[in-house]
């Protein structure tokens, strides 16, 4: 009986807070059915009438390419980036988390410190580097940093998770004659599932929504991603913008990250309990 009471309290909190948090998103969703005058002139949640015209017209894009192209491009950019990041940052985190080596503290500090300078002043020299490599207008400016684990945030995060796992576990395996790489793949990686999935979720979301890097490195419209496409028809300089289309496409563009999150959750839930750690 006691358990039930707690559950009810939890439900009440979850629902009240959830409604408050999600109401604005409902409003945005219904706004995709309103024209500009209704959208900006009225406060009502529900539109005067429902019509899928914003979705239909929005999907067509402006000019040469439909959102199908932008969708595929985004996948082409994001999927390899995310997978490579998950591999590379995991390995680097293992190196930092479990081994002793010279200058480790300095290197770790250097790694974290690369997060402390605003992007605005890094952007130009970084463009210069990528341009020298001939990577502009390709997705290499996104893939290469993923291969080379240039995401300190995600490395640090995985170190923190790794440090939550008792060392005896991998030590005993090492004593059994496994080399450290095998230990990582066979023993630690399965235990680190929650952290690996966090990496996947975060990196997917960031790359999916990233605007400035895409803007700078991608110049051909045929290579545009969703984040660029969404702003493509907004000319704040005078002409009017079909906001319902922009909002409609914003929602459509978010479906994959939402699905990913929804289905990846179970890996947090399973977590370590399935692996079974003996202290």
């Amino acid at each position, binding site marked *: 009986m006691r358990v039930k009471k707690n559950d009810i309290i939890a439900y009440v909190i979850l629902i009240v807070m959830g409604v408050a948090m999600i109401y604005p998103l409902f409003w945005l969703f219904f706004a995709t059915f309103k024209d500009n005058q209704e959208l*900006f002139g009225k406060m009502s949640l529900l539109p005067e009438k429902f019509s899928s015209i914003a979705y239909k017209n929005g999907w067509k894009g402006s000019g040469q390419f439909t959102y199908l192209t932008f969708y595929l491009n985004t996948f082409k950019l994001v999927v390899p980036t995310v997978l490579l990041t998950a591999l590379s940052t995991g390995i680097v985190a293992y190196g930092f988390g479990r081994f002793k080596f010279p200058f480790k503290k300095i290197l770790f500090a250097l790694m974290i410190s690369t997060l402390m300078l605003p992007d605005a002043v890094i952007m130009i020299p970084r*463009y210069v580097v990528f341009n020298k490599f*001939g990577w502009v*207008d390709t997705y290499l400016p996104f893939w290469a940093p993923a291969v080379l684990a240039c995401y300190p945030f995600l490395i640090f995060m995985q170190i923190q998770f790794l440090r939550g796992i008792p060392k005896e576990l991998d030590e005993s395996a090492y004593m059994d004659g496994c080399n450290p790489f095998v230990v990582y793949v066979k023993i630690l990686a399965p235990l680190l599932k929650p952290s690996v999935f966090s990496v996947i979720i975060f990196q997917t979301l960031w790359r999916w929504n990233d605007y400035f890097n895409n*803007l700078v490195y991608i110049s051909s419209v045929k290579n545009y991603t969703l984040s660029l496409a969404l*702003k493509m028809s907004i000319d*704040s*300089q*005078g002409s009017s913008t079909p906001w319902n289309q922009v909002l409609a496409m914003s929602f459509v563009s978010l479906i994959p990250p939402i699905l990913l999150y929804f289905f990846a959750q179970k890996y947090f839930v399973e977590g370590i309990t399935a692996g079974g750690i003996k202290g």
Partner: protein
Amino acid sequence: MKRQFKKHVALLMTASMAAVTLMGCGSTGKTDETTQATQGAAVTSAAAGGSGESVTLRFSWWGSDSRHGALLDVIDAYQAKNPNVKIEAEYQGFDGYYEKIMTTLSSNTAPDIIQLNKEWLPDIQGAKHYLADLSTLPVDLSTLKDRLLEISGTYNGEANIFPCTVGGSPVVYVNTDFAKEFEIDLAKNYTWDEIAELGKAIHEKDSDAYLMTADADMLNRLFIQPYLVQKTGKPIIDEETYAPNFTEADATEAFQNILNLYESNALEPFGDAATFAGQMDQNTKWINKKIGMIVDYTGSAPKYLSSVDSPLDVIAAPVMENAKSTGVVYGGDRGFSINDNSAHKEEAAKFLDFLMNDAEAIKIQKTAVGYCPTKHSEEILITEGAVDELQKNAIDLVAKDPYINNMISGNTELEVVRKDLIQEVIYGDVTPEDAAKELLVQYEEILEQLKAK
């Protein structure tokens, strides 16, 4: 063994660092080849530029869907006539466009044909000879309306931008339903004081309603600057001496004028309007006919037209009594430039000529790219019935009696100082007198630096 490994790592680190530094340092000049190759422009025909050989041009612009569609159609039409030319369109919305153009210009990866804002010209061309002199290229500049090139496309005596629109500011867009409701006489030329009085009467009648609204940027460009020009009859800064043409008293008066408009409730409270900064067409009160007028550029007509269901009218901006000038500027805000580093300047110019001067291209674009910058475009489009009346009326208003502005008066740094001070005055942080004093002090410093350059 251990030591050797350490050495290798150290070596690797220094080597890669050095490599990047070296590559990074030679960022100008000798990088053309790699750049062009990666950017997809055809390197093969670099020397030729003549007809027959295949050429790829990159063309970048910002805009909305209608402009994208129109320019893509023009490109198709040109490619059909010139099968050897392939034009790659790089288009986007306005946000981030300038950042991208600056980045690509400085790294020598900029497109061949570039849409630019007139305001950016001094920054770009003043830094380096990035843009080609159009008068040396096969593009007919004589078709442009009188003085347009001189006012809006020339830097240091060189024609760098082919203006793609004419227009000006300030004009006042009026919601005619609002005007009827509050019995506003639209045939009259208002003074600032009359606007304040009218606004006061309206707000007294309906406490939800205001005559006008404006954000900090609009107050700066469409209220303060015209006010100073009306007062002195000259651009705010003298081009020769780099000295302000207005006095401290003039500036005090200009700031005080803004305060008067707020105190009489002619302007919607600044804090409420600030929510819609840069997007006044989304202002809820304007859409719901609780705000009757917005002062803006002629080019904003489409934005306001589609924002409300009432018919709009346009009237002349307020002036002061005994004004020495209307304070109205006229010219072209935007235009197209050719990258001076382009391998195909001639071909780019030929396309530009087609885009702006060819009757077929004009008919395709209508006013999606800009409002009739050339003499014949107006004729063609009026016969076609493609010209919007509100915009035409707005342009007729600014074309009537404008003053000639100069480049230095539009300097970004000077504008930022003004914009900051206006807000401080409105929020009561400083008095108009102190703001005027500070304005001149800061201007002196900035102008000195600009002069030194």
